[in-house]
């Protein structure tokens, strides 16, 4: 195998998987004659056939269509929650790392507080407090994820702050915003992207876990988590539902993980993210 390919295997395979899933989500509505809602009770739990490429679910709805729509929704929820977490976390991390002192101390205590909650409990509590629904789910997940980014960005910022040209810029009196944006942010982006890509997988699994406990998006929204939750109830007699949705989640997460790993080799070769997670207090 050519060197470049074998080294970047993770990256390419991951990218391939992710692209396939996205394509599946985007193109399916044009390929499939069914819609997400039409029930067909006599044909429940059908195995794949020419009429139903992925079979049917517990209401006889076409699984291919529902899984495609589910891909769109699950990925959207994951991307939104990670995006919010990244933005919030990065901002806070930059501020904490740059200004140091009391600001840093205070912010890190807030981070500690959030980290003290078991993630599922925090998400559950937030959803229970805000009510069910996609938006609240996204908010809950963001609240759980942001701390990771804050810590990494803060650590990188702390390190960067002391570097010569940054110190020089500060000495001249350049505005903090400028310094943050131009000098520090570019160094932060690499590790953050890696973490974010890996975080997408975690978000998808988190959503399915919350749906399993009954705290996910409202039906009949076909998120993979809901389908898997239903499938688990029927596991003994009709395993297909569970197999399909479980596999879908697993493959997608695998894709994001592989992609993230490949990215890590490119964007964060020194393992800053990993090392920082270790050392951050």
């Amino acid at each position: 195998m050519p060197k470049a390919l074998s080294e970047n295997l993770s990256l390419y395979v991951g990218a391939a998987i992710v692209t396939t899933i996205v394509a599946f989500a985007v193109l399916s509505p044009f390929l499939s004659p069914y819609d997400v809602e039409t029930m067909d009770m006599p044909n429940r739990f059908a195995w794949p056939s020419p009429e139903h490429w992925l079979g049917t679910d517990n209401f006889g709805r076409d699984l291919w269509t529902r899984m495609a729509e589910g891909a769109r929704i699950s990925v959207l929820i994951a991307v939104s929650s990670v995006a919010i977490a990244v933005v919030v976390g990065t901002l806070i991390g930059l501020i904490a790392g740059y200004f140091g002192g009391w600001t840093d101390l205070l912010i890190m205590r807030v981070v500690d507080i959030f980290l003290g909650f078991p993630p599922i409990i925090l998400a559950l509590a937030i959803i229970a407090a805000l009510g069910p629904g996609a938006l609240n789910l996204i908010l809950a997940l963001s609240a759980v994820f942001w701390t990771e980014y804050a810590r990494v960005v803060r650590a990188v910022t702390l390190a960067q702050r002391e570097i010569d040209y940054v110190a020089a810029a500060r000495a001249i009196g350049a505005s903090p915003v400028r310094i943050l944006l131009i000098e520090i942010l570019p160094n932060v982006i690499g590790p953050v992207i890696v973490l974010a890509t890996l975080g997408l997988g975690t978000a998808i699994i988190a959503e399915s876990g919350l749906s399993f406990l009954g705290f996910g998006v409202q039906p009949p929204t076909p998120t993979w988590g809901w389908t898997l939750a239903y499938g688990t109830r029927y596991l003994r007699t009709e395993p297909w539902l569970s197999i399909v949705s479980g596999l879908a989640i697993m493959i997608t997460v695998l894709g994001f993980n592989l992609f993230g790993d490949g990215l890590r080799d490119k964007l964060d070769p020194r393992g800053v993210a990993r090392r920082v997670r270790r050392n951050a207090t």
Partner: protein
Amino acid sequence: MKINVNFAAAAAIAMAVMAPAGASAEVITLGADVDAGTLDPRTQRDTTAYRVNNLLYDGLVNLDAGLNAQPNLAVSWENPEPTVWIFKLREGVKFHDGSDLTAEDVVYTFETILDPELGARFRSLYTPISSIEAVDPLTVKFELTEPYAPLLSYMDLGIVPSDYVEGGGDLATAPVGSGPMKLANWARGSKIELEPFADYWGGAPAVDGFEFVVVADNTSRAQAFEAGDLSIIQSPLSPQDIQRLEASDDIGKAVMGGVGITYINFNTAAEPLTDPAMRRAIAMLIDQDTIVNGIYEGVDEVATSILLPSSWAYSADISQPTYDPEGAKAALAELGWSDSDGDGILDKDGEDLSIEVSTHSEDPNRIQAVEFIQAMLKQNGVDATVSIADWPAFFPSVQDGQHQIALLGWLNIVDPDRLMFAQFTTGGPQNYGSYSNDDVDTLLAEGRSAIATDERIAAYQAAAEIISEEVPYYVISYQGYQVFYDPELDLEPDVRGMMRSAID
């Protein structure tokens, strides 16, 4: 040498002590879906507590499998006047702590349950009692404010020892009753262990122990039973497991009609459901058959009216609306709903017909039923949405009348009064849908006070007719009761899940 001898002796003693007990103990393990909250029979509130307390305590009567009152602590009773009941108690009954059970304890039990400070959930079942008197140590006299026919079926309330409670005993965690079993150990959230009470008046039970093991997830509980870790499991179970277990030949099983219903609660005070014709139209869009046989896999029975088949008041002639999409369409059109803007949703006066169907998140079958109902409504032009929240959020909103259509259930319907009085009388404490009908009020009051059974039957059937017309409730199914057990157990299935027959 001295050392060796001592060592040998010590080893021998150690071996003797460590040796396993002789014959293996017969301990029955029952899988429960929730842990008991409290083991005080007056404040009990969950099915596990009912069942555990049934073994720990005795009531004046015991309800048999046909829900008829049989003598228990009371050997006989009489009803000399419509508002007076006199119970004669059995002699020689002892509590687990050795003290005697007398009329005083009965008086104490009922007086405290009627006391609002105790916060007993079932207080409203006993409020017609105006006074309880210990005529002599073995006779209790109850006086009522008005004739109250269902009284006898509520007389299985466990009697508590007044001295123990007054002396500071906490029944909730350290129960003391006069029942055949007593509490050996309670690992909160995981296991309740009972052991036989040697001085039980009916003779000590034959089993060596009875355990209630908490496994919340229905599927896991069924799997544990099949793996041999549990000897009895019962409703609630998931339909798929029920089907599979029913088909199995080498286990003991009983499947029967239960004393619960799954139903739709219409909020009659919320637009557009204020008009009975509207409620009937919506009811006609609910495909009971598919829900019961598809989602619930036939373990429940399709309901025809508010009266249960297991009840003496039942009549097959009373019938609520059945699944009839064409009829529904016609009815809605008659009410002025049409799709004037072509978006697939019916509208009237510029407003879309939108309805929210809600239920709680703990029961996957109810979630599926609601999803199904939503799809059916949507197909027929109703802009239906689903709302699912966990019970502590869902139930208060129903109690406050904030719902439109809510799917829930009732249990323990041992008497028609239990299902209808508090729920349908104007302003009744459980009338969440704000239903009001003067005729129904009169009929339900009659049903409660008449003593002659045929008078009660007439009253309840008349009320049921009106309810089938006006549809404040649309009963989807009569819940079945299933119990699966180790074939070596000699269990007499009881529709409320009581386990007294198993211990002898």
